[in-house]
């Protein structure tokens, strides 16, 4: 039995835990305002708001309901467009009407939910309101009118007086009054803990599984790891960091402590999927899915992270991430082992870290090639180096030889070019829909150079680098 609150109704359902939330909403609850446009997380037509208690606080964010298994929403509040309809339209709805933000209207409920979630979030300002709709496709309007609505909404939000957020929003007609009762009602479900840990299939956010094998998820018994999670699973001990396998991309991106160590973290992670998918996609899922271009895998390879696994009978073992991937979609891990967490050393003031990604569309796209690097430098000499690259081999690749080469080298144009030459020998890109093998080779070269240009621009002259190379 799965229990959650759908809009203002408490639901107990014995529908399969692998059923997509979208199907439950449209077919079981008969709420047709949530649309289906792709069923693969790419269009945002099915966007709903998910509310959950984290450390006692009710946190709202958007998710795509087409990739959310019911098993993941136990104990949560799910809000569809019907759940924010009031006697008079909400300011989000009014802004979209006033700015002519709809044409055919099929995408509109998704945009309304994304913008409403922006109101419920702690974010402020037009840029954040724009980011809130980064997972919504509109084929008709060209987005301009929707952006104008977003601008107005962000201004309205900034104009609200201080105070308890839900209360404030309710008093100003942004959300219906029943929202105020949700925290208490959710607590009651929370205490009613359910069997979420049975079954063979391990499901994190479901953003890979529900695309790749929806039938297996639907039919099989599964462990739902995103159910009943109450904190973001990110902890720090001296200069080490541990991130739980179920931490989402959004959790990592929003971690204030991590942002201190990686000031460009929000920028890097903005290049990964979209707001709703980042709210769902987990770290463990990204590693275990073992896609050769998985962004988090590439990111943490360059931090030389360790993976902590827990198998049957609570058997625990640790594998360096660079030894975790052993072949195309093959892992140093048994089916039963769960990725408990990863563990890595945080960069110090002598460490330079950078992550780069090139895809066909600038934002929200799977990479053609991505790469990360971390270098510890003393007196212009590299004392430790880890470089990774995705999309250039069957696995997320730790560039072993190139990393080793860089150690004890001075940073200069010649060494950078040599590092690239070595890296080019380590990779084996294939031509596919994301680009030809030659193109990917070229991209890796550019990314390698960019890494150095990014953090040591005064030492490396771009023109000189580019003049000297020939591949």
């Amino acid at each position: 039995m799965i229990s959650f609150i759908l809009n203002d109704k408490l639901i107990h359902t014995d529908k399969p835990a692998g059923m997509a939330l979208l199907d439950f909403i449209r077919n079981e609850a008969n709420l047709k305002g949530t649309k289906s446009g792709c069923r693969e997380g790419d269009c945002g037509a099915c966007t709903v708001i998910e509310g959950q208690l984290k450390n006692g606080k009710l946190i709202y964010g958007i998710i795509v309901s087409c990739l959310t298994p019911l098993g993941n929403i136990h104990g949560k509040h799910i809000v569809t467009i019907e759940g924010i309809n009031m006697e008079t339209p909400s300011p989000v709805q009014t802004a979209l009407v006033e700015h002519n933000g709809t044409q055919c209207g099929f995408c509109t409920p998704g945009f309304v939910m994304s913008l409403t979630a922006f109101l419920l979030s702690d974010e402020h300002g037009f840029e954040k309101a724009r980011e809130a709709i980064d997972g919504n496709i509109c084929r008709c309007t060209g987005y301009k009118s929707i952006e104008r609505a977003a601008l107005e909404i962000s201004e309205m939000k900034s104009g609200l007086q201080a105070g308890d957020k839900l209360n404030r929003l309710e008093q100003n007609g942004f959300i219906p009054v029943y929202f105020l009762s949700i925290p208490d009602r959710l607590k009651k479900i929370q205490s009613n803990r359910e069997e979420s840990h049975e079954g063979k299939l391990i499901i994190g956010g479901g953003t890979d599984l529900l695309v790749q094998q929806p039938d297996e998820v639907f039919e099989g018994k599964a462990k739902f790891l995103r159910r009943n999670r109450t904190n973001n699973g990110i902890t720090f001990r001296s200069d080490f960091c541990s991130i739980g396998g179920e931490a989402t991309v959004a959790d990592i991106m929003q971690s204030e402590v991590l942002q201190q160590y990686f000031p460009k973290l929000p920028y890097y992670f903005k290049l990964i999927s979209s707001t709703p998918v980042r709210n769902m996609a987990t770290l463990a899922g990204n590693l275990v899915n073992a896609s050769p271009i998985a962004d988090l895998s590439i990111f943490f390879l360059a931090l030389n992270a360790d993976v902590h696994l827990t198998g049957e009978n609570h058997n625990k073992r640790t594998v360096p991430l660079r030894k975790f991937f052993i072949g195309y979609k093959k892992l140093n891990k048994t089916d039963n082992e769960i990725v408990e967490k990863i563990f890595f050393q945080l960069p110090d003031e002598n460490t330079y870290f950078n992550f780069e990604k090139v895809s066909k569309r600038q934002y929200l796209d799977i990479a053609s090639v991505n790469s990360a690097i971390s270098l510890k430098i003393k007196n212009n000499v590299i004392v430790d180096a880890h470089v990774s690259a995705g999309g250039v081999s069957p696995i997320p690749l730790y560039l072993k030889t190139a990393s080793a080469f860089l150690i004890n080298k001075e940073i200069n144009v010649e060494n950078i070019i040599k590092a690239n030459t070595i890296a080019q020998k380590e990779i084996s890109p294939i031509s596919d829909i994301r680009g030809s093998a030659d193109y990917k080779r070229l991209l890796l070269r550019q990314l390698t150079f960019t890494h150095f240009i990014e953090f040591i621009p005064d030492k490396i002259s771009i023109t000189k680098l580019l003049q000297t190379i020939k591949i």
Partner: protein
Amino acid sequence: MKKVKLPYGIPDYNLTEIVREIPNAEPPALPVNSKLKVIGKRVKRTDALAKVTGTAVFTADVYLPGMLYGKMFRADIPHARIKSIDVSAAKAHPGVFAIHIFKEMIEGANPKENNKKSGYPEVKYAGQPIVGVAAISMDIAEEAVNLIRVEYEPLEFVVDMDDARKPEAPLVYQTNVNQETSSGGEDIEEGLKSRGNVRGPATKSFYGGPRGNLKKGFAEADVIIERTYRTQVQTHCPLETHGVVVDYNRGNVTIYASTQSTKGTRNDFAKTFDLPKSKVRVISEFIGGGFGAKHTLGNFGVMAGHLSKQSGRPVKLMLDRKEEHVSAGNRPNSLQLMKVGAKKDGTLTALKLLSYGTAGVGLGSGVGNIAQAMYECPNFKMDQYDVFTNAGPGAAFRAPGNVQGAFALEQLIDELAERLDVDPLQLREKIDKSTIRKVQRERGTQLMNWKKPKKAGSDPGPVKKGIGVAQAHWPRFVNLDSTVEVRVMQDGAVEVRSAVQDIGTGTKTVLAQVVAEELGLKSADITVLIGDTLFPIGPPSGGSVVTGSITPPARNAAHKVKTKLIDLAAGELDTKAENIVVENSWFISKSDRSKKISFKNLAGKLRVEQITETASRSDDYGGFMIGTVGYEELGAVQFAEVSVDTETGFVKVDRIMAVHSCGRPINISQIESQINGGVIMGIAYALYEDRVMDKNTGHQMNPNLDQYKMPFSFEVPEIQIELIEEYGARSSTDATGIGEPANIATAAAVANAVYNAIGVRMTEIPITPARILAALGKI
């Protein structure tokens, strides 16, 4: 007939009046927009609230009692004869109510090439539907489809256009195929011959055939440029996929359809099932976009009809995203060989186009209209060939043919300007006789602060900026089969009825505006009921015909109702009808303005519950222009600014300035939204979207929204819109559509700007980073 003075020309430029002789039944001249209250304003969409609250019911949302769910078994190989089909297990599957096997291919060019032995049509593309199942749930329908066994005799196939043109290529069709020569369906050149998979050449369009003598033209030229251009296949990707719910109830059929033509869907169904049109009703209240692909009943609609007829239950059949990509239509690709000859002063002496294009198993792929009609050139010839491939059929797609054609023509003209060392706008000044584009160029020049572009590729540094411009041309099509009924009821309610549908373009709202203006009311006072063939038939939403076709009869019908109300008011106010004016919902005596009666009170005096008037689109005032190359068609000029990173190959569009006209603008915000949408679609066409076929398997490699790239909001540049009001005294509203022109020039403008940035012509789209790097010799 009566003589009427109508506004003519462009305000702040050459606005005057012109006298037209028009039928007596036509309403008086409508003054220019600045003198109107509702028309030409930013009126909110009448159905916006339904959309923002999610209460708008799309076909995908329709549920009828007892409804079954349909799913089709589709061929998973691209070319085959069907030896046998075994549906016994599917039939026996609990919950299955009906199974239908197609006896012929519905889509594409549709020659009846059936396998003589089995009686089944040949499979001609991967994804072609073969069998349909209706069951009590979608899951059961899918399970049943998985139980169907089809035995094939695989045939050799070809999915690549260049391969298909080769003499040794496997044949997609064994027989000659008769079909449109353009993907818009306007042109049909009968009896074109096929050689192998190549059909044509089509040399004519509704603009006529070749002009002058090419040889002579090129002999007179001082400069000759010859170039080859390529464009890709683009799929429509409306957010709501194609689909229907068919309720075949003892010969009385109700169809809920996500369609751009209620009429077309009804007529297709009546014909297919041999029913009188009066027995078939099509309802399309909300449609989640179409962009040209949703004009017909479609194979899925035929299938749903059979399944519903068989089961006696309503059947819903919606395509999923993959089916939408592979089988529901696309914009044909093109290979265009263009040759232009010009005098030193820019005068064009000859223009030649040789084009190939593939729309898969069906539909023409002509691209020549724009080359034929945009510029003055005495010697012109086009040879357009369609190439059949084993891929899903094409469908009209926002400015069919012209988007591909403009990409080639407008780069060629840009190159010619460079060769002649003149500003590309200056060259167009010389060769373009359109007044409207002349004004658009002037406005654009001011707003862009446009100067002759700098030397191509001359920016220092790895990120280079560029500017470009391109023009659009689109005929002012009208569809005379456009009828509107206007009703006024005793309580003062006003209702507008037509079968015309609103696919998001805002048809409901413009109808409300036009009727409100005529009756002296506000648009919110008008209830618009459309998208139902029980109402008078309206035009299909395609070709930018709707506003120009449906608003005149709406005004005319409203005018007839108003005339009746004025007669009534004259009696009530004891004066003559000529002495009555209608203002802000009051009927007022001109001679004594204290004598007046409100609209509502006047309606209360009606002898019957409601009065109703109907009008159909009358002929254009002053005669039609369509059918000749004229320079008063719809025009647009778009400017693009781009940055190209020559190290990563990334093209970023920084700004688009879109200067447009569409006759008398009815609703400014809706027009702007259309232009924004068209521009973005054009940018996506220039940079991202591309249907990729796998030559080895014959399948589409990206039938999703993950690898088929549409832009999100972050890809959208600054878009500025300049709308130029323009009066042509053509009808009682003098309005025209905007959907297609918005989409025509963008890709060409972007390509020209990219050239200006990097100094290398990108003659093939999409302009991907890899193509930029290849063009720069980096890979």
